[in-house]
């Protein structure tokens, strides 16, 4: 495994570690976040690299990555569609919205994880409560927020902005 990081990025990682003088291990989450920001996902190499840096066994980084759904193991599409599936949205049609988005974008995969379209343009994924339960079902596309996504027309309309 060889991985080359820009000096800037590596400095950022080292700086984050200094926030945890008692136990380096505690820097694992911040490092994973920085990594995902930089590369979009957490690769196998990333896990090995971070484990080595924090002097822990790689299994303990993998534990974190597989525990938190926000960490991705694979690159995602250009546009990230995050469909809320917590109770209110689930009752309000989250599963229909998710299925509709999958259909419209051609995204494929197991509903439990990120589903990406073959052209790499879209990733559809469930997330937990987005704090707008009154306007269920809700979703985010990239950093924008959309409420009452309850019809295919509405979904089509939204997708036009993300080509």
């Amino acid at each position: 495994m060889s991985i080359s990081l820009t000096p800037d990025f590596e400095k950022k990682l080292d700086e984050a570690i200094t926030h945890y003088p008692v136990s380096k291990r505690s820097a694992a989450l911040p490092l994973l976040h920085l990594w995902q920001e930089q590369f979009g996902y957490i690769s196998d190499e990333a896990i090995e690299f971070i484990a080595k840096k924090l002097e822990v066994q790689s299994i303990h980084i993998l534990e974190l990555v597989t525990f938190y759904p926000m960490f991705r193991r694979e690159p995602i599409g250009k546009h990230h569609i995050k469909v809320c599936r917590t109770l209110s949205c689930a009752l309000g049609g989250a599963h229909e919205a998710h299925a509709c988005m999958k259909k419209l974008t051609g995204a494929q995969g197991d509903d439990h994880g990120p589903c990406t379209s073959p052209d790499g343009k879209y990733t559809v994924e469930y997330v937990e409560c987005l704090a707008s339960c009154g306007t269920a079902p809700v979703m985010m596309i990239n950093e924008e927020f959309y409420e009452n996504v309850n019809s295919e027309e509405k979904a089509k309309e939204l997708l036009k902005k993300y080509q």
Partner: protein
Amino acid sequence: MSMSKTSINPFNHDVMPDNTPLVNVNYNGKWIQVPKGLNVVEVTQSQGEFLPHYCYHEKLSISGNCRMCLFEMGMPKMDASRQPVLDANGKPEIAWMPRPQIGCATNVTEGMGIRTNSPLAVDCRKGVMEFLLINHPLDCPICDQAGECKLQEYASEYGSGESRFVEDKIKKPKHFDLGKNIVIDDERCILCTRCIRFAREVLDDDVLGIVNRGGNNTVTCHPGKHFDNEYSLNTVDLCPVGALTSKDFRFKMRVWFLKETKSICTSCGTGCNVTIGSREQTVYRLTPRHNEEVNSQWMCDTGRLNIHYLSGEDRFTRPLSRVKGELYETSWEDVLRQAGSRLKTFSGKQISLLASGRMTNEELFLTKTLIDELQVSLYDILPRQGQGDKFLRSADLNPNSIGASLLGVSNDGKNLQAIKSGIQSGDIRALLVLQEDATEAGLSVEELSKLELIIYVGLAPNATAKAAHFVLPSAGFTEKHGSMINVKGRVQRLNQAHLPPGRAMDDWEILRDLRSATTGGNGIHTIEDLFRSMSAKVPALAGLTLNKIGDHGVQLSLTAK
């Protein structure tokens, strides 16, 4: 219980320093005194009772994850001036908490109330059992842990007969290869983390972990890595369920058929205490037996797995004697008479003897008697050095080097060269080899062929047996009685789990009979007699009997050899 000065464990929750102050606790309605700092699981144990638990282990950190040890807890009622309120009998009144607490993570304090059998406690246990079984595959009939599975046992004792879970169970890896000796069935795992904590805390080999979340939690190694530690199989013992199984033992034998015999491992000088699991003539497994002074609750994989030679196809089952260049099966009477009378035709100077650091004290004592009576001048054992480690394994791979020195049979290998040149020059004409291969001790096959008499006592063929004139088939360590002294000078007992195959005999009996056929000495009929005559002659063993050595051994003071 007192703690040895340097325990090999990072945690010893069960061992309290002798001067620990006592506290009063109300245990199931009775006021009792227990050492402060014990947790409720241990308090229950100290009362001869049992609070069911999975994740708690006395040699591992407390992790409190299984919730099986829930109990009802109370604290002394305080009045306005923070003084305990006393009842009619002058005992503190207890205010019971509405919610249960986990026993393993609750250390007792003065005046604490503990109820382990109240309706709340019983109900909680039942609930926890139900949760633990939600995703369990219920494949007990084909599970190797059956018979010693805590999940089965507690489910029948504390659970309810039926599951109310109608949803789909989560699927997980069924036989994942964790390392060279271990397979894991993640569907049976109850996520107690004992294996993970053992690897991390006791072995400092933190390669196990839990991936995924919630119901999908899975104990595993990082992809591509393995749990190949020399002590990995201890996790199989620690695992309360059938999740971790030993590749060597799984599916070989139902545990309830195994006869258990207390003995020691003889694969190195540490002499870990073990339980031999055997059925009929076959040893199926060794498991560590608790002895805080030697191995705590652990043993190494090498020692544990070093049993298969005992049931080898090649074991000698009858005495053999050489006629016109070929070895033929014969009777004990015949072989002993012939070997004895041949041996007598040589003077002590013409005889050499190669004994073994794998022999018991009793065997060595008889060997020394024979050496003295025949006036054998050149004799020794074969030293065996290996790589020790910081945990249990000793660099001395002979289990009884100390015994061999103490009983005067060993010269630490210094005589081996002299024996070799004696054979080369023709001064040595007869050789007795006991449980060793002379070629391992540096003798060549040509040198062996020069000898006029080779008597070999051993259990399987080797170069010496091939050259021998008489082969006396002997017993493996699970087939014999006797004692050995470990590298720390602790004398410990071996017990016979099963008989040696065919006509093979326990070595001490062979030596006794060989001696009476050679020098006429006799009078020893039992191993206890033998030990008694030995302890009468050897000051370090004075006053001891096999009985007194007991199951946990006795530390000798061996300052003067």
